[in-house]
């Protein structure tokens, strides 16, 4: 068992066909500048002989233009680079039937978005928003998207790189995989709640406590994977499952909306569906006045 935190590139090799990854190329897109968004690795590989787009974090790279962007942080360049890879995947397969839409595989190991001054001046929120919209568009255009969390999937970083996927897989906690918004220490500091009490509560409260198993309980992760060797096989299985659902028109069972239903099914998020039902019922009573 090998901990893959910081090993985004190694994780790519463990998933795709040996030697098939071509970095920087996605159909008509070719990025050769090594200093442009180096923390984001994009490219094309084959998986079981079929072409797919790969988007990963490289935690070993640091961006020379942005001092806060290193260790897997997604900065302005990284996010737009990732978005470009997605849009070029869509363009490449435009007009092709669903079975031929290339898969997009997200290898996730990011501690978050660029938290700097330049980022705020130029609008980091746009960059990560752009990448999320690109992924949502690709998913709705029929591309099967799997996110595989191999290390850190933290807050806004995970939101943009991972949470728009059709299915999310994560290595189990024994790999020190981290999925959370903030560590308990920071939550305690900001909410001014007692840390020891929060730590006690965190043992079995999936709604706020850090951990892949809690996200699983909330429906935020489809499956936890227990060994590195299984990653490739599970990605292949999930991609096939996703493609079958898209071809059957069952898109609503996929992506963030699908995970909402999964959260209710697993008992972690039950208030959500109750609120939605109340709203919909109430609206039906007045809809005629408005529509």
């Amino acid at each position, binding site marked *: 068992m090998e901990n893959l935190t910081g090993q985004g590139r190694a994780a790519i090799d463990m998933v795709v066909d040996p030697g098939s990854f071509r970095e920087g190329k996605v159909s008509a897109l070719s990025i050769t500048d090594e200093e442009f968004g180096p923390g984001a690795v994009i490219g094309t590989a084959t998986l079981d002989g079929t072409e797919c787009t790969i988007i990963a974090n490289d935690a070993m790279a640091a961006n020379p*233009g*942005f001092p*806060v962007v290193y260790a897997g942080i997604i900065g*302005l360049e990284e996010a*737009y680079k990732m*978005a470009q890879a997605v*849009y*070029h995947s869509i363009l490449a397969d435009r007009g092709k039937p669903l079975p031929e839409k290339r898969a997009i595989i997200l290898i996730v190991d990011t501690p978050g978005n*660029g*938290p*700097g*001054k*330049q*980022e*705020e*001046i*130029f*609008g*980091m*929120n*746009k960059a*990560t*928003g*752009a990448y*999320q*919209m*690109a992924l*949502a*568009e690709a998913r*709705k255009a029929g591309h099967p998207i799997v996110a595989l969390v191999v290390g850190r999937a933290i*807050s*806004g970083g995970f*939101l943009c790189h991972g*949470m*728009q996927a059709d299915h999310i897989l994560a290595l189990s906690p024994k790999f020190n995989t981290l999925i959370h*918004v903030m560590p308990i220490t920071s*939550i305690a500091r900001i*909410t001014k709640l007692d840390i020891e009490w929060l730590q006690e*509560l965190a043992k079995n*409260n999936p*709604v*706020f*406590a850090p951990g892949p198993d809690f*996200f699983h309980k*909330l429906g*935020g992760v489809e499956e936890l994977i227990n060994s590195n060797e299984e990653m490739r096989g599970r990605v292949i299985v999930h991609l096939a499952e996703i493609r079958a659902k898209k071809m059957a028109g069952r898109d609503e069972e996929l992506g963030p*909306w699908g995970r*909402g239903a999964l*959260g209710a099914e697993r008992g972690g998020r039950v*208030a*959500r569906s109750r*609120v939605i039902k*109340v*709203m*919909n019922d*109430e*609206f039906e009573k*007045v809809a005629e006045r*408005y*529509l």
Partner: protein
Amino acid sequence: MIAGRWEQLQSKSFLESNARERAIGLADSGTFTELAGPRHRISSPHLPLMGEAVEFDDGIVTGVGLMGNKPLFIASQEGRFIGGSVGEVHGAKLVNIVRMARNSHDRMLAANPALPEEKRPAVVISFETGGVRLHEANAGLLAHAELMDQFQDCQGKVPIIALIGSKVGCFGGMGFAAAAADTIIMSQFGRLGLTGPEVIEEEMGKDEFDASDRALVYRTTGGRHKYIMGDCNLLVADSIAAFRDALRGVLAKPHAEISAMRRIGSLEKVLHQLRLVALCVKLAPRDSRDVWKYAGNGSPDELADMDFDTFLKTAERLVIDDREG
């Protein structure tokens, strides 16, 4: 509603207004119906476990109203309840109002494919939030992803207009959401960003960014800066009427024109943003004023302090030519 109340709301400061006043005042007089409102007493099931008080609207007002013939699906966040933060219930209400707008659009168009644009639904969100509610952080984060998913479904169908002029501003993951709207309307008191000032200070050191320096915080994320950068489309005075007038002006435009106001949401927009990022590398700004100056504002120091009307007349907005380089 008490007679005259709607008229009184119009002149009220947007900054001082609570979420319900904003929701009621933005729609035509007497047309706003709240959905899943306080009478249903749907509060967070998670806050009591943490010993925290609940609100029966979980810090967000959602409902439907009219602007002329147009159905408005409105969400309005309440900063006075845990900073307008997004928990499970709050998030579900926000996500579902957007979904409801898109479903209504599809339903209306199915019944009448020739339905004129002036009768088609729009989404209006008055943001006042720091993003995820830490007491129910995981559920809040999941709701953010759902919102972006619903936003994408609305693209090209239902315009989404973001309004930002309340005390908390719009930060964290909700900063992404606002950026993904078709149109952003702000007042000079509105603030929009991703990382809050304290976190930037923590990352960069107090010498680089002093979070207690109010003027610096506004220069970096405030309405005037966002207006110069093109990161808000319209900058308006601080009243509900001013926001409503701007909203009406935007929604009167053909949908294609509203979509053209977007910052992100297509490859072309991404390529344009990349030109701005290249400019950021070139300028390596130590302060927003460096960019204001580049945009053609000779005396950037004065821009932050001059009165609002003079600012609107004087300020040069950043223009980047996509044909360059």
